[in-house]
């Protein structure tokens, strides 16, 4: 049996995740997870609020996520540890909140991974249909998507996120190509906004109902902080990668809305599965269709890839602190990845994808609500963070402006999205709340006794103010 020192090879007796990432990888992780929402999903907001309602949702939720990105950047620039918001909650609020936030993260990313595998397989099926084979079974392609990406994640984070950077950049470039192919600066030539736009079809209540689907434009950008333990400089890379990612997404979301809503009526767009691919069919020849097909496929793969990365880091961190069985806190001695966490989450994603591949909205809905619970926590987390560790008491790589208004605005925006979700998916909202309440009871009465209460805090932070 190899000794610890021999295996580490660097004179240390501890394993750690490999610190090899830079701001580009952080950007690739955040934008990679999210960009698929521009290719499919965001457009369901038109079914509730029409074109204007979708734009309101795009910018309203854009503001929500800007608050999320700023808060996340500040806190993560001080917490150079995997686990992201779970680790933040552990240090700043307490174990029950940390457990819940960790669970939100794992569920949100695993469900999103399953959804992306379904989208990728559906695309392959539609391509097969165009070649004359309409009866293709999507299941083997769902499983293949998860298998290949999990294997990539297992083998190392640098290659995983470098691949993510390349395919995400290609997917983003596809949106830019589509934008310039519709003569965007000559209204009425290709884009028919004046003819297609109507008032809010269901009034303001419809615009509020559209908010839930506006989440698709940005869902997952907060995942950048899962890379904190693997970046060379957390204080620099996380804020730079996250904020540049958020700017990229605001641009992509606005361009997507502008092009699609100028080409198709809201009644069609509100129920389309591949709106940008449909836009390419309407405007261009085979080349543009091929570009959008590749863009959609790459966006789905990049998202699934990033989700495997993030879900496994959350699960790994919870295992390391014994919030979950310690066995999951292992690091691969050669690849330096949380390999057991990656392996454990594979069958969960596969089962969800295979059981619910005809109910994409359900899987995505679970993911969105888990994410939303996490954002709600962030506003409380930020207030407490500034109170316990005021500016100057701890080194911050980034200090976000307008505190406490950012946290207050985030909380108000989240409340409106809960209301929007309740309007359309009240059963799902209540089911998910019940799930997390039951999980919390399990943690409080059973699991907490295994937690490493003192050992879990290894960050070199000063004592909080007032303690």
């Amino acid at each position, binding site marked *: 049996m190899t000794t*610890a020192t021999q295996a580490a090879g660097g004179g240390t007796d*501890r394993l750690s995740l490999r610190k090899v990432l830079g701001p580009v990888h952080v950007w690739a992780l955040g934008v990679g997870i999210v960009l698929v929402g521009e290719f499919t999903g965001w457009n369901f907001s038109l079914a509730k609020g029409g074109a204007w309602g979708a734009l309101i949702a795009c910018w309203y939720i854009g503001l929500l996520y800007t608050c999320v990105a700023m808060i996340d950047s500040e806190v993560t620039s001080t917490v150079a540890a995997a686990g992201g918001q779970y680790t933040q909650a552990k240090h700043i609020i307490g174990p029950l909140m940390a457990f819940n936030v960790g669970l939100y993260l794992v569920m949100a990313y695993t469900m999103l991974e399953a959804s992306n595998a379904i989208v990728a397989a559906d695309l392959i099926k539609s391509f097969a249909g165009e070649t004359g*084979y309409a009866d293709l079974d999507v299941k083997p392609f769902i499983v293949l998507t998860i298998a*290949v990406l999990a294997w990539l994640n*297992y083998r190392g984070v640098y290659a995983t996120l470098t691949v993510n950077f390349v395919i995400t950049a290609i997917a983003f470039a596809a949106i830019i190509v589509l934008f310039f192919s519709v003569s965007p600066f000559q209204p009425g030539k290709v884009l028919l906004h004046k003819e297609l736009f109507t008032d809010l079809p269901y009034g303001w209540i419809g615009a509020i109902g559209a908010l839930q689907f506006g989440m698709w434009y940005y869902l997952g950008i907060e995942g950048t902080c899962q890379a904190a*333990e693997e970046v060379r400089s957390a204080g620099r890379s996380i804020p730079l990668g996250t904020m540049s990612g958020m700017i990229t997404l605001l641009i992509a979301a606005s361009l997507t809305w502008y092009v699609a809503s100028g080409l198709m009526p809201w009644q069609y767009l509100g129920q389309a599965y591949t709106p940008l691919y449909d836009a390419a069919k309407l405007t261009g020849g085979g080349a543009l269709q091929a570009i959008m097909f590749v863009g959609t496929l790459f966006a789905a793969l990049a998202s699934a890839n990033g989700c495997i990365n993030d879900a496994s880091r959350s699960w790994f961190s919870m295992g390391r602190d014994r919030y979950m069985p310690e066995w999951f806190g292992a690091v691969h001695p050669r690849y330096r990845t949380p390999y057991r966490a990656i392996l454990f989450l594979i069958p969960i994603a596969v089962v969800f994808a295979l059981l619910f591949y005809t109910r994409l909205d359900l899987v995505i809905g679970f993911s969105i609500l888990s994410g939303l619970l996490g954002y709600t926590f962030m506003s409380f987390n930020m207030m407490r963070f500034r109170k316990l560790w005021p500016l100057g008491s701890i080194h911050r790589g980034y200090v976000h402006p307008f505190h406490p208004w950012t946290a207050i605005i985030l909380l108000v925006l989240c409340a409106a999205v809960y209301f929007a979700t309740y309007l359309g998916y009240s059963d799902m909202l209540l089911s998910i709340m019940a799930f997390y309440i039951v999980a919390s009871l399990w943690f409080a009465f059973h699991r907490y006794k295994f937690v490493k209460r003192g050992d879990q805090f*290894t*960050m070199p932070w000063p004592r909080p103010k007032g303690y």
Partner: protein
Amino acid sequence: MNIWVLLSYAAWIISILLFGWMIMDAMAVGKQYQEDFLMSSREGEE
């Protein structure tokens, strides 16, 4: 046999091989290294 049917079989086979490889590797690592070492990482360590 249709090319898409062949691709479906190939997808199953590649998936099984990849899952199998990861499981075998994880088992080999578990045998080769001590459990304390595999779980020795600490948050925030350089």
